[in-house]
C-alpha cells in the first residue's frame, strides 16, 4: 500500500513516537499483569490502550483508530459492570 505524499514525509521522523509509545504500551501491559486490585488492572489497561492507539494513527489507519477509541471505553464499562465495587450488602 502506497501512502500519500504528506503522510510519506511525516513517516521520516517517527522514531521518537515509536520509542515513547512502545514504552508506554509495554509498561501498561506489565502493570496489568502484576497489580492485584481489579481497578489497578483497569487503569493499566487504559494506559496500554493509550500507547496502542497513537501507533494505529501513526500507521495511517485513521478510521480504525476512531473506531478503537470509541469502543475502548465501552469494554471498560462492561468489565466494571462485571467486577464492580465489592460492597458488604449482597
Amino acid at each position, binding site marked *: 500500500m502506497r501512502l500519500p505524499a*504528506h*503522510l510519506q514525509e*511525516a513517516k521520516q*521522523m*517517527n*522514531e*521518537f*513516537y515509536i*520509542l*515513547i*509509545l512502545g*514504552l*508506554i504500551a509495554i*509498561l*501498561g501491559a506489565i*502493570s496489568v499483569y502484576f497489580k492485584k*486490585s481489579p*481497578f*489497578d488492572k*483497569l*487503569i493499566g489497561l*487504559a*494506559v496500554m490502550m*493509550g*500507547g496502542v*492507539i*497513537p501507533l494505529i*494513527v*501513526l500507521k*495511517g489507519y*485513521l*478510521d480504525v*483508530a*476512531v473506531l478503537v*477509541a*470509541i469502543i*475502548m*471505553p465501552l469494554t*471498560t*464499562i462492561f468489565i*466494571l459492570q462485571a467486577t*464492580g*465495587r465489592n*460492597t*458488604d*450488602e449482597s
Partner: protein
Amino acid sequence: MIFAYDAAMIPTYICGIVALYAVIRVLTEKKTLKKLVLLNVMNFAITGLIVLSIPDIMALFAGIAYFVGSTLESNAIASTFAGGKANE
C-alpha cells in the same frame, strides 16, 4: 537519530516526555484516586501526540474520539471506585 533538533518537533517532545512521566507516576503510586488523576494527565499528553503526529484532517477526529472516550472511561472507573450506594 531520535532527538534531532527541530523547532517544529519541540511540542511533540514535550508531549511525549509528559506522557512518559505520567505513566511512571501511575505505576509507582499507591492510592487509586491519585492514579486516576495522573491517568487524566496521560490522556491529555496522548491526545497531543495523536493530533501532532500526521498532518491529516482525520487525525483531528481520531484525537477527539480518543479524548472523549478516555475521559469517559476514567470517570467511569472513578465513579465506580468512589461512589455508589454504600456512602449514603
